[in-house]
């Protein structure tokens, strides 16, 4: 796991999302808890040796155990509703429109390479994912057999869109070396990148002859956006090129899967 460092320590107007999060402190507390447990409940010598080995493993960041433990700690932060509320707090609908336009516009990086993600939300991604589900449902209704069960079609549409969003954001979170972002910001970036899919599916539902071309254009623009954001946000730019390429390739292939699997003549 990449440890999260502070994005902009020097700014005085630090808002809640860029606030410094001491994960080291949390990990230390967790280790202390484990030590206390070991003291309270003495185990067999073999098991105690095993537990010591586990603790040694967790100290190195490359094991799966530490990964799950850190995810558990991060999820426990969002148990309180008041910490989730700022993610959905939008005053103007124009903010969402600007972010939608930005998700297809990678040309912004040519002039301004020192990017900082100053504000983000999860309202847009949730709505985009539901629109994708609705478009898939519409496409399936046009083509599929009428005898097929209805709830099966709806479940397929919703499950594909949501699982793609979550799994892709998890992949980006683990592959992005040197990117100092929270998991929620990565979820917002990946969620807004799905807007390209919605555009291509809408165009190909209206007229299927433009479908392949629009898939290349909008899919390519959104993948370029993801690649460039990961490249310019990372501190280690030699290491990020291959993982960001893998992420963008997954994102570019999935649009063709959606286009050829769900929209038929």
């Amino acid at each position: 796991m990449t440890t999260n460092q502070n994005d902009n320590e020097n700014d005085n107007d630090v808002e809640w999302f860029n606030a410094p999060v001491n994960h080291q402190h949390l990990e230390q507390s967790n280790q202390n808890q484990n030590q206390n447990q070991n003291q309270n409940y003495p185990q067999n010598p073999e098991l105690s040796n095993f537990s010591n080995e586990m603790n040694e493993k967790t100290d190195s960041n490359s094991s799966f155990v530490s990964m799950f433990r850190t995810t558990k700690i991060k999820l426990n932060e969002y148990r309180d509703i008041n910490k989730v509320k700022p993610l959905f707090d939008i005053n103007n609908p124009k903010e969402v429109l600007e972010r939608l336009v930005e998700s297809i516009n990678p040309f912004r990086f040519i002039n301004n390479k020192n990017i900082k993600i100053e504000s983000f939300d999860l309202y847009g991604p949730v709505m985009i994912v539901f629109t994708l589900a609705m478009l898939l449902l519409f496409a399936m209704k046009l083509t599929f057999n009428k005898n097929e069960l209805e709830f099966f079609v709806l479940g397929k549409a919703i499950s594909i869109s949501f699982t793609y969003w979550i799994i892709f954001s998890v992949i980006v979170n683990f592959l992005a070396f040197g990117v100092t972002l929270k998991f929620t910001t990565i979820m917002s970036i990946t969620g807004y990148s799905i807007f390209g899919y919605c555009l291509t599916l809408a165009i190909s539902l209206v007229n299927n002859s433009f479908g392949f071309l629009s898939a290349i254009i909008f899919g390519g623009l959104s993948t370029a956006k993801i690649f460039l954001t990961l490249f310019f946000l990372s501190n280690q730019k030699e290491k990020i090129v291959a993982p960001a390429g893998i992420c963008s390739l997954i994102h570019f292939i999935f649009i063709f899967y959606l286009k050829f699997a769900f929209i038929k003549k």
Partner: protein
Amino acid sequence: MQPNFGDFYEAPYQKTPQNRFQNTDRVFFQDSLGQNRTTSTTRLDFDQDFNEPPLLEELGINFSHIYKKILSVLNPFKRVDHFFLQDSDLAGPLLFFSLLGFCFLLSGKIHFGYIYGVGTLGNLLIYFVLNLMSTEQINLYQTISITGYCLLPLVILAFCRLLLPFGFVFILVPVCILWSSYAASTIFVEILEMKEQKWLVGYPVFLFFTCFAIMAVF
């Protein structure tokens, strides 16, 4: 030798409070084995039972309120009365959802489970998103009642699908969806006091009603 379970039986059960046995009498009788036992019988208080309000009033079904709510949904441009704020009525939504189901049934589609699933999922989405966006709170029953009453245009659409040809219905679909979503979003905005975010409130509602429209058309 008989085992003595007395200690075991007394430990887990708590002593019941005295108020619970206000309407009960205790009766002593002998078992077939000759052991003394006790039972409790409920005593009916006729004066208390027959002075209750009528059943529809007790369930919260008020036909004049339902009529006014339907009129306010049919006239979305009129200023909203505060009936929606006062009571979360579930009688009207049940009527409209069942009417929608029967309209689908007449065209040979058994979609009752589908309506139930989509309704619960969509209402939960609207409930969580609106509560996270706004500073004020809204009840889940209120969201169900508002979306249920605003389902009326889609019931009309499902009924028109039975009679009219497909080309005419295809024009009527966006009109009905926009009508119902506009009516619902105005009510939500008035309850939660977020007039600047009306488009953001309207979009999940719009998605919720498009799902029913897709059901009605295909």
